């Protein structure tokens, strides 16, 4: 009982930390705006309030948040097992291309079958991209940070090569043709980017929450992530677990790409991602590896992402300022969490005392 109590405080504390970091980041961001000669209050109205008061704005926010939900969740899966999957960006692109190519080449299939094939294809590609670093880590002890980053550069090169040489829409510079109607994810309101991918993402978040708090697999991942040696001694096959979580992580990141290809745009373009994969890592850490937290933080990021566009139109503030703001939040949350953990007397390596500990 006592432990549960303590955990409840920690959840509340971590929400407080995120809120405080957000406000602090707004403060620092406001100072930057003042230096640039803009009025921060006006800017924040365009950034945070304006998108939420109109229906169109809300839809746009949801559309911007969708890929972030997938990448945030993907980062969380791997990170729970203490693996840093920095290769999300590459896995996302791989999934997006596979989905788009399957989406426009396979003709005459019923929609359910066509979509299933696209989903399977994208997930397998993403999982395979993540398998290489996972296998190298388990088999040879190569740190995944180096391999996943290198994979990002390699995949990005491969994607441009494939799109430009083989899958290019005639007359366009670097994008595939539109996918067939049978492979499109239904858009809620045509010109906006929101589509059924959003629902899939939300369902996945809840599913992940359930897996981590209620299943044996989730328990194993948590234990391996917290103390690999102890987990091994208790009979958990940690190597297999690392490979499985990495592949799942890659598959989910690939779904984020699929959502862009089949849902938001209807085609795949080289360099379409403004860093969804890297944002996913930030989201995962801000949300303290909690899948439901990922959902909330991703929506917040979506708001800031669309609000940033809005701001860019209305004032002279460049959109990158919003990304600086995101970076500030990220940094403050990391520092705040560490200070909180130190006060709680937890050793510095471990990030979170999860609610699921009590299970």
């Amino acid at each position, binding site marked *: 009982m006592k432990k549960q109590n303590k955990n409840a405080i920690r959840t509340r504390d971590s929400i407080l930390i995120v809120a405080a970091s957000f406000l602090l980041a707004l403060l620092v961001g406001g100072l930057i705006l003042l230096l*640039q000669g803009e009025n921060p209050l006006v800017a924040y109205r365009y950034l945070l309030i304006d998108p939420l008061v109109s229906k169109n704005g809300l839809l746009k926010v949801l559309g911007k948040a969708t890929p972030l939900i997938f990448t945030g969740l993907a980062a969380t899966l791997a990170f729970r097992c203490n693996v*840093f999957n*920095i290769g999300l960006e590459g896995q996302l692109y791989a999934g997006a291309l596979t989905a788009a190519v399957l989406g426009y080449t396979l003709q005459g299939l019923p929609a359910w079958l066509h979509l299933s094939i696209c989903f399977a294809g994208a997930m397998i590609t993403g999982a395979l991209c993540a398998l290489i670093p996972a296998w*190298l880590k388990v088999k*040879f*002890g*190569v*740190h995944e*940070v*180096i*391999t996943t*980053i*290198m*994979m990002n*550069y*390699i995949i990005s*090169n*491969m994607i*441009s*090569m494939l799109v430009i*040489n083989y899958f290019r829409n005639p007359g366009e510079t670097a994008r595939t043709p539109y996918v067939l109607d049978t492979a499109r994810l239904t858009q809620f309101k045509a010109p906006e980017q929101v589509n059924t991918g959003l629902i899939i993402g939300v369902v996945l978040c809840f599913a992940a929450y359930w897996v981590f708090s209620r299943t044996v697999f989730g328990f194993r991942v948590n234990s391996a992530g917290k103390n690999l040696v102890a987990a091994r001694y208790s009979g958990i096959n940690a190597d297999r677990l690392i490979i499985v979580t990495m592949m799942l992580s890659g598959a989910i990141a690939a779904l984020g790409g699929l959502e862009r290809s089949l849902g938001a745009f209807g085609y795949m373009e080289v360099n379409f991602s403004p*860093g969804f994969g*890297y944002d996913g*890592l*930030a989201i995962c*850490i801000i949300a303290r590896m909690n899948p439901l937290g990922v959902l909330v933080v991703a929506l917040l990021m979506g708001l800031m992402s669309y609000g940033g566009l809005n701001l860019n139109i209305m004032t002279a503030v*460049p959109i*990158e*300022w919003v*990304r*600086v703001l*995101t*970076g*500030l939040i*990220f*940094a403050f949350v*990391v*520092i705040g969490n*560490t*200070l909180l953990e*130190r006060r709680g007397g937890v050793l*510095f*390596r471990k*990030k979170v005392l999860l609610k699921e500990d009590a299970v």
Partner: protein
Amino acid sequence: MTVSIASILARMFASATPIALAGIGGLFGERSGIANIGLEGTMLFSAFAAAVGSYYSGSPWIGLICGAACGVFVSLIHAFLCITVRVDQIVIGLVINIFATNTTVYLLSALFQNKGASPTVTKLPYITVPLLNGAPWMEELFSNISLLTVLMIVTMLAAQFLLYKTRFGLHVLASGQNAKAAFVMGVEVKKTQYLAVMIGGFCCGLAGSYLSISYLNMFVKGMVSGRGFIAIAAILIGRYNPLGVLAASLFFGLADASQMALQGILSIPNELVQSIPYILTILVVTISEWRSRKRCSQLSV
């Protein structure tokens, strides 16, 4: 276009310079017990600072000072967060990288109204080694060397000396191997780590400056393009000592140089050729980790 061996070698040194400098930067932190995944971001910040310094002052030397100072400053923040606040070292590296990517682009657009690149700036002078340009191939190799390439080799030798032959170096090694034992022996562990990380930041700053005011003559968005991570690979392959890092960097430099040379010649797509350094990095790191693992298991038997 004819490709001579001398020109490939010259390019090898040019490509190896930033990797070696950043590698030595990471090495100091690593040997003192502070892992630095943020080399990439530190280089990016420094490259930007160097370009801005050179642009506004008109003097590349001021740019170089700005770049190096920026490297020291970023590493000071890194050291503070790692040593005093004790944030997870990999996470803080990620923060620095993400922050650097976004902040440099923001500053580009705020200062120059251009999100892709800065205006052109004055470069550092290139030098020619006077005695060694007798034969034509020597001329190709020993003329037009970036000042920072020369500085890189000096830095490597200095680092080797500093790390293994001085009191401070031994303190660094001791702090990295066993901080508690070092503390008991009277080493000021935190101070040593701060100093080591900041020396590393200085080298990283030189690496970043090299990219923007010597290799190119402007800052380009995301111009470090993985060199910071290749530098980490070079540290691993070089078995955590400066001359090893130099050798590994030269290897990566050679890969990059042959990649550039191959681009026009082979009939395979350029994107594949451009991936060669990254693929090689994965392969070489794997082999090196595998060998060290084998050696460890032999020891324990």
